[in-house]
């Protein structure tokens, strides 16, 4: 660098800048290629018949009804289990004084659980929920497995939302004589709620797209009926897509693309709700 003129040094800088810009937009470009490829392949297969039919040996008759409803069942149960537990854990870790080493130990556990591959959760679910507790290959077993998988995400997001609540709110509640739990329940939680909800929805949308753990617990790849109760076998959108995509015929690949469009629309709607809640909360605060 000693022997370089200032002009050379600027030139190197400009080249580096261009490389960074180029590589960044390459990432963006890949996303558009992916979306374009999926919609071009799948859009012709996307119609009411596709949404309202069961899977079939014939690509023309194949549909996504059981997978779509299976996803709705699974996510409803997962939400019911994981939201209370996750938010409760976050409250304990964020609002209560640290009790010796145990809180720290719990935090380390949560951080490590967030990095465990999803398929390992599937094995845990297979052994504990499907076999040991005897839930079989049912929606309940799937939801419990999914709940364990997304709990770290919910806890981390809920803790951030709780941390953003100003301490002064807690202090004023204490000053008026409220107990610890009263303060949390009627002052802290309402303020933190939009942030918690946003995090929860993003965690649930991760559960919508997860495939591997459900394959492990044996969610079926061919389900020609709608689940009627929590103990019924089921399939979900990503598993149905996986099933179609792993067949050799091109027609089934296109049906898979149509399934992907449905899945992406579901995810887009969930993210839309999360963004809307964040936006609404920001406006309310002003």
């Amino acid at each position, binding site marked *: 660098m000693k022997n370089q003129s200032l002009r050379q040094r600027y030139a190197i800088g400009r080249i580096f800048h261009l490389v960074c810009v180029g590589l*960044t937009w390459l*990432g963006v470009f890949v996303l558009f290629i992916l979306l374009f490829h999926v919609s071009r392949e799948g859009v012709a297969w996307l119609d009411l018949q596709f949404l309202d039919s069961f899977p079939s040996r014939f690509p023309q008759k194949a549909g996504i009804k059981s997978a779509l409803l299976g996803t709705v069942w699974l996510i409803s149960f997962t939400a019911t289990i994981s939201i209370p537990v996750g938010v409760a854990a976050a409250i304990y870790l964020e609002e209560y004084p640290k009790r010796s080493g145990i809180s720290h130990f719990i935090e380390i556990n949560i951080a490590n659980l967030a990095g465990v591959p999803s398929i390992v959760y599937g094995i845990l679910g297979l052994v504990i929920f499907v076999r040991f507790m005897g839930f079989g290959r049912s929606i309940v077993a799937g939801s419990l497995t999914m709940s364990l998988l997304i709990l770290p995400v919910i806890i981390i997001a809920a803790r951030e939302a709780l941390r953003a609540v100003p301490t002064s709110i807690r202090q004023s509640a204490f000053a008026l004589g409220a107990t610890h739990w009263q303060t949390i329940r009627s002052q802290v939680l309402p303020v933190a709620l939009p942030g918690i909800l946003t995090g929860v929805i993003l965690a649930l949308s991760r559960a919508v797209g997860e495939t591997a753990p459900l394959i492990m617990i044996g969610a079926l790849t061919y389900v020609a009926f709608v689940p009627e109760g929590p103990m019924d076998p089921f399939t979900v959108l990503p598993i149905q897509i996986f099933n179609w995509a792993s067949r050799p015929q091109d027609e089934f690949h296109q049906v898979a*693309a149509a399934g992907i469009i449905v899945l992406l629309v579901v995810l887009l709607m969930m993210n839309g709700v999360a963004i809307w809640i964040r936006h609404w909360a920001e406006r309310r605060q002003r």
Partner: protein
Amino acid sequence: MLDSKLSGFSSAQINKKRFRVGEEIVRGLLFLAAFLSVITTFSIVAVLAQEAATFFSEVSFWDFLSGTKWTPLLEPRSFGVLPLVGGTLLIVVGAALIAIPIGLASAIYLAEYSSDQVRSVVKPILEVLAGIPTVVYGYFALTFITPLLEIVLPSTKIFNAASGSIVVGIMVLPMVASLCDDALRAVPSSLRQAGYALGATQFEVILRVALPAALSGIMASFVLAASRAIGETMAVTLAAGATPNLTFNPLESIQTMTAYIVQVSLGDTPAGTVEYQTIFAVASLLFAMTLSLNIFAQKILNRFREVYD
């Protein structure tokens, strides 16, 4: 007089006590919810260890770790896990070649060069990229990237490690970009200004001031990305194939550890057989690898973190 005062005092005491009981119950319940994570961790370890122990009572640990042939479902059986580990590493290295340069470059662009407007466009797009389900990436690899590779390199197999590692790279790219971006933005601007004051150009400030100061975060993001790539399942199951194959040729079909676990669980393997136990042995190895990488990343962050006021 004294009596009533005393009784008033004691009833207040009782009230207070009853209140505290409720508080303690709530606290206990909240603690249980938090403690569930510890239970989960121990259940994972216990479940994996139990079946893996049965497996290792039949197959020697050393043969498993050093064997170069993996044919647990066919006679003659052989339980050498190296082909699966090799397949996984092939995917990880390929993914790193994609995700590290592009992710780091995006982070430098977002943190050091771009205006706030560009940032507010690019960041959400990267988040969308991170939110796309892995099975979609698998489909993309199989129906778009592999045909593309076949045009460029005709010796490409239908299932190949290259297209699998390319999509895994795309998948972990947003994580690398976002973590490196955080690390770069945590570097105080006073350091950069000191660099400019000494006559450095913007590029020199980035190269010699910002990047070294953010190094711990950047290295940690690479390690975490590797851990994610090792645990990635659906994309490699769809695109990289199902042939345990100890090769360094990315155009050939391979099988990763995760893909093997999926393959066994898709079939009807009864519990208690050696085939069934292999998935626990492989999953134990997978768990050990990702856990040590995650702990390593945490160590990097703690050990080399530069603390600025």
